[in-house]
């Protein structure tokens, strides 16, 4: 094997260029502005299950070596632009996650992220659907709430169920894992979702799952009628988790609380806490307009477009050849 060589075919590279052009035209005709934000940041994500790469900047104005993090998504920086009255914006950039490679994963990947001022998550789901129809030629998508999905495929109400019911369902479904009782409630839901529900949805046309449990809200606002769920959605198609969107939380104090809770969870699991992005929280203080945003994995979109089996078929030099 020649490790200097790309893992892609030239056809795949042409397909990538064509896809990027289609995406840019899609937003151009909709009057959404392309922006550019830094990959390095002093603050980073606090999610328990998301690790950022970090590096040291030796020439900081403070005179001290400063830790900088590679972004896991351009979310905080783009929201700072929104708070500065940018209006609707999109970005195509690299994002980095310190985790294993896999069929659908490379630690460095291309992300499309966009924000629509004045949209709720329902309107944004329609726009994501339109983009998928435009890029992949798909039929209109299916939509199903997280609760409906669990009720349909597992006969469980994820909003009322307890740990025992989930453990029982895992056993019934033959999910064999060491000490399942030590998994968190949300991890159990996620395992059931990935193993049992995901293979049954989005096989012919993309499927949107919306109204995730509030415990998996991340940066989404809670539903004002039913605070058990967050106004967050994900899109699944042919085995890929393609996009994740929020009706964006704009309350700075609530956002700070979530970051601090995350850090507490990290410490409880023996992980180090992460520096909260104060520039982002200060921007929220100044005021984030009502908006919804979504992040979409471009490499995965390209995999679906070219019917690739592995992400290395669409990334020239995956991490093993970096």
């Amino acid at each position, binding site marked *: 094997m020649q490790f200097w060589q790309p893992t892609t075919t030239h056809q795949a590279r042409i397909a990538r260029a064509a896809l990027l052009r289609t995406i840019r035209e899609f937003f151009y005709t909709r009057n959404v502005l392309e922006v550019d934000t830094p990959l390095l940041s002093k603050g980073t994500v606090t*999610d*328990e*299950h*998301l690790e950022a790469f970090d590096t040291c900047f030796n020439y900081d104005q403070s005179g001290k070596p400063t830790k900088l993090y590679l972004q896991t998504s351009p979310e905080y920086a783009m929201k700072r632009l929104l708070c500065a009255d940018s209006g609707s914006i999109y970005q195509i950039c690299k994002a980095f996650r310190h*985790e*294993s*490679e*896999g*069929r*659908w*994963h490379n630690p460095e990947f291309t992300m499309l992220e966009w924000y629509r001022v004045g949209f709720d998550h329902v309107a944004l789901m329609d726009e994501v659907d339109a983009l998928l129809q435009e890029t992949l030629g798909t039929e209109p998508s299916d939509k199903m709430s997280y609760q409906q999905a669990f009720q349909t495929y597992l006969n469980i109400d994820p909003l009322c169920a307890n740990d025992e019911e989930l453990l029982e369902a895992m056993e019934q479904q*033959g*999910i*064999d*894992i*060491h000490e399942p009782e030590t*998994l*968190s409630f*949300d*991890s159990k839901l*996620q*395992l059931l*979702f*990935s*193993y049992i529900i995901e293979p049954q949805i989005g096989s012919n046309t993309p499927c949107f799952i919306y109204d995730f449990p509030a415990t*998996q809200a*991340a940066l989404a606002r809670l539903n004002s009628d039913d605070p058990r769920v967050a106004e967050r959605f*994900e899109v699944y198609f042919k085995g890929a*988790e393609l996009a*994740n969107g929020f009706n964006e939380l704009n309350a700075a104090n609530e956002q700070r609380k979530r970051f601090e809770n995350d850090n507490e969870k990290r410490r409880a699991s023996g992980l180090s806490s992460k520096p909260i992005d104060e520039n982002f929280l200060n921007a929220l203080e100044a005021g984030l307009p009502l908006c919804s945003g979504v992040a979409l994995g471009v490499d995965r979109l390209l995999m679906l477009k070219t019917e690739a089996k592995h992400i290395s078929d669409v990334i020239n030099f995956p991490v093993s050849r970096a």
Partner: protein
Amino acid sequence: MAYYSTNEFKGGLKIMLDGEPCNILENEYVKPGKGQAFNRVKIRKLISGKVLEKTFRSGESVEGADVMDTELAYLYTDGEFYHFMNNDTFEQIAADEKAVGENKKWLVENDVCTITLWNGSPITVTPPNFVELEITETDPGLKGDTAGTGGKPATLTTGAVVRVPLFVQTGEVIRVDTRSGEYVSRAQK
């Protein structure tokens, strides 16, 4: 023995599970968008032969299994053990009935088999993909049958029974695919 982190999982890696050496067949990295990462692994237990699916938390470590394949020529059986020899070093190893299992019916003297050793002891014996064996008993072919209606059973010197075409007779040597147990052809003289 070494421990392997889930990052090192790949097809062919040998690990211990429930006290039994196992071979990893497939490894899939599963990472729900905002959730914990898992490795979903398809495993073959090397002694029982059972294939099962197991999920590990990413980052978990698992004990490796000291398992290796070696190519050895079959010599003979003493009724209890099956004796094999390394053709380069002349070192001999005996495998028990359990390790040989169903495959004993494909053991031909001097054929080189793959012996899987765990901590130095044979746990499985895999015969070559094709072996040549003599027919000890089969019905004489029926006249006029050329339609290939599925043939007839034939018993081989090792006791194996395979279906052969009607024109093949007792005393002939035939070539058999040991993976499917199917007749391939008459042996080349």
